[in-house]
């Protein structure tokens, strides 16, 4: 106690409340942080969608002038950045936060305040990344930002600075969160929860976290080099100065391809939870699914140059990356087989989460198959940088990641809110989004093969591209409508949805043993785990003949001892994470505007870190 007062106690008394706005701002509870992540990422997702619809409106017909060429280039750049860094990644984080501690039988994550810090850095970093719109133009060089167009000579405005600074700041958030989840998953599992008994979602979180801590340093190096180029004239990526624009491409894609798996593996984890629950069967070939996830994570490092088949690396390099890229289809294919086998012989309930999970498999497989045609480099020479690639990547990231994450929202919303999302509206949402998705991106395969390049703000009327572009645009608006249905569903179900109870889906994992929403301390008693589907095994027993039957409620086994809830020590809220994040964001902002802002930012950062260091996780309570 003395330490806190000694540091900053005079003007920053420790927050103790769990209610109201300050309760949210100072929270270190992983469940609340999960909700913050979810709400923020959904907001950015809608913003990314607005940008996408503007792009599709501009391209609906040849020669339209809905937006200027300059704004168009900002829109497609920011659409990608928003969706990747501010929507999909943090939406996965939302589930890491909310679900992982519950699934492994823990009361919180390993470092609760660091967890809050990750969220606040994400929020401020996201605003920083988007800030270019307010200062004369956001980044407009594509999310891949190929040098030398990113150099001051070609991109003098602030948008590019916000790209660099925003991504640097966001990288800190991702790395901090990843370390946190690695430690949480490795160290905080309940007794008996061995690694090979963990739910697959935990496994995929672990693999994703390792990818994050290894991939982000690479892009960080590249971004700092670019920062030096822009501010100090270093010339890392300027060939006339002895630098090399291809250095950027290599660094970017060495990060960028693992990033693709950072986006898809959590969704695969979500789907691996939902399929068994709604099929009433355990996941088929658990160890193979886990192992193939790990293999995908490793192989994700060996395929980056397939993004660079047309830069002239030569036949040998292209051959190597052709083969390594095709090999990654093997573990992916194995996962799909196992998912199908999980459903086979099951009793499949087609509730909304399951529809999204099956939609995920269907669309992801289409994306994987089209992927083979540009894994093969001579065939890719025609497809690279065309709408064929746009179609492919959206089948994987929209049909894959987004469908997987929406499956997760429908699945875990009841646990978060205690109420189910409307089933009828959910089905309407699914079918509109599924149809709209195929209408938007299906025709783009054809457009690409018909020679339509990516990133063009207009095209002439005689190219024969008008019709399918119009179809694609209509599909995009159908996706937009489906999201309105979703929002309405959330709004209505928030206070009028059917009460969920602890276990609305007859699920198999530990999070469903708790009331919905779970209490602050999660588990009143830390459970002891005896198998892969601990909750299922409490509810069901299989007799000698192989028949499984439900145990009467009274006979269900409970072990572990009940603690006095009053005695459970959970971390107290803290002001410091948000201040550290604010200081960091201001320090970055100052680089783009005026160093005085940086000085203020660094000061806030240092003071907050100092206060943090001397603040105990749990405030000792005099009356205990």
């Amino acid at each position, binding site marked *: 106690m003395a330490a806190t007062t000694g540091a900053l106690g005079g003007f920053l008394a420790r927050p103790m409340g769990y209610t109201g706005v300050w309760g949210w701002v100072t929270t270190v509870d992983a469940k609340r942080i999960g909700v913050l992540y979810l709400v923020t990422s959904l907001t950015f997702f809608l913003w990314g969608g607005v940008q996408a619809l503007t792009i599709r409106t501009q391209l609906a017909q040849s020669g339209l002038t809905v937006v200027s*060429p300059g704004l168009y*280039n900002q829109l497609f750049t920011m659409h990608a950045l928003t969706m990747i860094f501010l929507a999909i990644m943090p939406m996965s984080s939302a589930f890491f936060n909310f679900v992982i501690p519950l699934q492994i039988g823990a009361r919180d994550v390993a470092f609760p305040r660091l967890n809050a810090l990750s969220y606040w850095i994400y929020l401020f970093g996201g605003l920083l990344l988007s800030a270019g719109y307010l200062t004369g133009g956001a980044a407009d*060089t594509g999310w891949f930002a*190929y040098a*030398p*167009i990113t150099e001051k000579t*070609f991109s003098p405005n602030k948008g590019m600075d916000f790209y660099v600074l925003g991504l640097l700041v966001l990288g800190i958030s991702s790395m901090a969160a990843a370390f946190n989840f690695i430690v949480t998953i490795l160290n905080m599992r309940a007794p008996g929860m061995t690694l090979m008994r963990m739910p697959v979602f935990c496994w995929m979180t672990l693999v994703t976290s390792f990818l994050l801590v290894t991939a982000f340093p690479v892009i960080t190096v590249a971004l700092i080099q670019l920062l030096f180029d822009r501010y100090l004239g270093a010339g890392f990526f300027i060939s006339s100065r002895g630098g090399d*624009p291809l250095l950027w491409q290599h660094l970017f894609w060495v990060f960028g391809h693992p990033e693709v798996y950072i986006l898809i593996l959590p969704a695969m984890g979500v789907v691996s939870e939902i399929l068994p629950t709604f099929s009433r*069967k355990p996941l088929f*070939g*658990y160890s*193979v699914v886990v192992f193939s996830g790990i293999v995908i994570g490793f192989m994700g490092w060996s395929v980056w140059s397939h993004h660079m088949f*047309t*830069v*002239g690396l030569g*036949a040998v390099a292209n*051959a190597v990356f*052709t083969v390594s890229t*095709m090999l990654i*289809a*093997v573990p992916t*294919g194995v996962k799909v087989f*196992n998912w*199908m*086998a999980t*459903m086979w*012989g*099951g*009793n*499949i*309930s*087609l509730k909304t989460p399951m529809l999204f999970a*099956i939609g995920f498999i269907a669309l992801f*497989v289409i994306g994987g*198959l089209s992927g*083979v*045609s540009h894994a*093969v480099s*001579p*065939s890719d*020479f*025609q497809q*690279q*940088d065309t709408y064929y690639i746009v179609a492919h990547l959206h089948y994987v990231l929209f049909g894959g990641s987004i469908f997987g994450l929406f499956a997760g929202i429908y699945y875990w919303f009841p646990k978060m809110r205690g109420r189910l999302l409307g089933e009828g509206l959910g*089905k309407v949402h699914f079918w509109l989004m599924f*149809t709209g998705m*195929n*209408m938007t991106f299906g*025709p783009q395969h054809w457009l690409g093969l*018909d*020679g*339509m*390049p990516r*990133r*063009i703000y207009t*095209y002439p009327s005689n*190219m*024969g591209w008008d019709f399918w572009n119009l179809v694609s645009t209509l599909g995009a608006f159908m996706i937009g409508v489906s999201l309105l249905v979703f929002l309405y569903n959330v709004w209505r179900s928030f206070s009028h949805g059917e009460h969920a109870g602890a276990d609305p889906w007859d699920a198999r994992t530990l999070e469903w043993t708790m009331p919905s929403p779970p209490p602050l301390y999660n588990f009143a008693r830390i459970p002891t785990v005896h198998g892969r589907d601990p909750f299922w095994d409490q509810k069901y027993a*299989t007799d000698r003949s192989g028949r*499984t039957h439900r145990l009467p409620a009274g006979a269900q086994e409970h072990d572990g001892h009940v603690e006095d809830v009053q005695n459970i020590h959970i971390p107290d809220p803290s002001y410091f994470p948000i201040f550290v994040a604010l200081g960091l964001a201001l320090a970055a902002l100052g680089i783009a505007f005026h160093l005085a802002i940086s000085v203020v930012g660094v000061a806030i950062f240092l003071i907050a870190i100092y206060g943090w260091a001397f603040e105990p996780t749990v405030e000792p309570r005099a009356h205990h």
Partner: protein
Amino acid sequence: MPASNRPFFRMGLFLGILSFGLLLVGCYPTHFQSTFDAAGYVAEKQLTLFYYIFWAMAFVFVAFFVALLYTVLRFRRRQGHDEIPRQVHGHTPLEIAWTVPPFLLLAVVAVPAISVLFELDTPPADAMEVNVIGHQWWWEFEYPEQPGILTAIVTANELHIPVGKPVKFTMTSTDVIHSFWVPKLAGKQDIIPTRKIVMWFQADRASPEGGFYGQCAEFCGLSHANMRLRVIAEAPDQFEQWVKGQQTPSKPAVELAGLAAEGANLFANVSFEGGQRCVFCHTVQGQAIQGKVGPNLTHVGSRGLIAAGILDNTSEDLGTWLQNPPGVKPGAKMPNLLLTDDQIEKLVAYLQSLR
């Protein structure tokens, strides 16, 4: 229709759209940038490989969707059937077995892929040489001296090549990364500042009226969408004639009369907005000052298109261009010189005399 039957309908719809798309391939082979209408050896090889992969993947696609739909429909929960299925955790032999087909399938694709890759990598020894220089946002083509071309030719945005002869391109960029792509002749190749990157293709039939279409495929800034080009593939004797035409000096300014002569004077000697003169940026053989910033205009009158292929080379379009270049091609390095209608008329007359 019960909800559980609807996947069938949606998939059917999707397959329908897909096959309709493929049907269009057959119906409209004149799509200007269609990769399905290969007109040269390289593009044909790449297309054959694509078809090969396509059919292999189409087979997987159909097999997979039949299996998925069958599984979901057969094992869906029916009303009143609330039983607990057998709790199967896995089947090791089966799991090992189904890693094999993906391997086999990929091997089937990989073998032709690698062989085509290496075959197309090296340009044939007897190829004609052309240097390609990418600029924001136009193409410069340079035919160095070589058998059949006695003195070097420099032109822009319109590439003339003889049918049946491989052409080797040595490419570089003066500013950012571009990508040279003529879909009917070959896949694309990126162009990187200060590097010299080689690719080749060959036209096996003459181009239709207006040439084979192409455009920059790597995002290169504001007017990336407007960085287009055409390849005029013509019979060898016609190509020779074109070469001869390009090597014959255009009519010297002193021999011009009327509007064109006045235009020549404007072009060479008059400073417009910002002290700019046409010759500061553009070369016309025979002029005293020969700028190298913009396209070489020595034979601009003989080209079909101007402004990186976004306008026709007609008096009207040339006039539109001269009136406000960045208005036509956003970000164009050529500024609006605030020319009067009279000046434009004279300049157009001069430029069109340069054949």
